[in-house]
């Protein structure tokens, strides 16, 4: 079974040299710590920055330089700054190669719900709806089941949707799944020490298992 860093580490293997990537809050942010050697990616922050660098050194925080999570950050050589409309313009235009974000639920046809729980205070969708509606490639990083032990990989989402037919891949603490264009979660890899049976029992949506499922190498 993977911890949060393990999920991030596994997702980082999906990065390709030259990618522009948008990382959501939570586990996706951790992906930046595991970018493979020899792979150069540029991080986009939707508040208006390409080329997001690491956190500043203590005492060097700049209140004018934050990421979409409102954290103090730094730029890198080759960074560029722009306004919020251009930021989402490049997202809508498909210039961002990969979006990695968290989710409360994903359906077997790639719908995603991650912004609203009826009855709870709704904080807003931020840029998530724009990102999921626009990105060419979306990987969801999340726990496989919720706190009540219920599967988050569902036949259909029960929560209000963020976007439809958009998630391409899911990485959870149990495994890696492709969301097939025709519907269904195709199991690609098991997390270390996790059985196919365990994954079956934890997945409410249509699970597709073909042949031997390898244990992931991370």
């Amino acid at each position, binding site marked *: 079974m993977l911890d949060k860093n393990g999920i991030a580490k596994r997702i980082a293997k999906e990065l390709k040299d030259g990618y522009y990537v948008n990382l959501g809050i939570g586990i996706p942010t951790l992906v930046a710590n595991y970018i493979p050697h020899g792979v150069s990616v540029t991080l986009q*922050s*939707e*508040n*208006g*920055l390409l080329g997001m660098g*690491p*956190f*500043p*050194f*203590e*005492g*060097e*925080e*700049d*209140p*004018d*330089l*934050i*990421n*979409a*999570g*409102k*954290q*103090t*950050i730094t*730029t890198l050589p080759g960074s560029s*700054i*722009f*306004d*919020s*409309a251009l*930021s*989402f*313009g490049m*997202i*809508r235009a498909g210039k961002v190669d990969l979006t990695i974000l968290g989710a409360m639920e994903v359906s077997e046809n790639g*719908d995603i719900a991650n912004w609203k729980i009826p009855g709870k*205070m*709704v*904080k*807003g*969708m*931020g*840029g*998530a*709806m*724009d990102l999921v*509606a*626009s990105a060419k490639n979306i990987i969801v990083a999340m726990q496989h089941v919720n706190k009540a032990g219920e599967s988050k990989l569902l036949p259909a989402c029960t929560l*209000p*949707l*963020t*976007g*439809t*037919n958009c998630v391409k891949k899911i990485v959870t603490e149990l495994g890696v799944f492709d969301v097939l264009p025709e519907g269904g979660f195709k199991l690609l890899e098991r997390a270390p020490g996790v059985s196919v049976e365990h994954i079956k029992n934890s997945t409410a949506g249509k699970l597709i298992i073909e042949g031997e499922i390898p244990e992931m190498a991370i």
Partner: protein
Amino acid sequence: MNKVVANAVEAVKDIADGSTLMVGGFGLCGIPENSIAALVKKNVKNLTCISNNAGVDDFGLGLLLQQKQIKKMISSYVGENAEFERQLLSGELEVELIPQGTLATRCMAAGYGMPAIFTPAGVGTEVAIGKEVRNFNGKDYLMEYAFDADFAIIKAWKGDKHGNLIYRSTSRNFNPLMAMGGKITIAEVEELVEPGELDPDQIHTPGIYVHRIFQGKDYEKRIEQRTVRAKG
């Protein structure tokens, strides 16, 4: 062509109860601190605020919320504010949540004289309810309208007396879009300079969009999430 006003109080003096305002900034980054303070002092009521966020309890638009000056917020994310939550749950405050890119593009559309834009954000979700959906090249888009704001109050780093503006780093965010989108645009700047001091090639907001400009003071520039790394 001199658009300089003495201070924030003068800049906002004709903002009346019930006005619709665009307010620049992302979180607490790049917010028009002086203009917000002047609106608090003026205690103008029943405002509709188009702003990506709603400030925190004791800063940014939170200061207007404390005094119950805001009737309605149009935002993409309003998470960091207990008083906001209280007013929302008690029904004192209306909130319209909009995808961030849609919010930005609807501001821009106003400044570009485009009455509506198309975006895929929100298709198939509750955001799409009641909206026109159109298919282009096999993909569905929502038609979203340009915002119509009485005033935009925004913050820039440097500005000249003609209203030309330059922003610093990610404090740019929504500011240039709102500067273009407001019917009357009020810009506060950290440094007000003479025409000719700014390089024409580096101006982010041409002065034609700005109606009033003033030198701000006492910027707090509060950091919302201070994240650092240890020196190696």
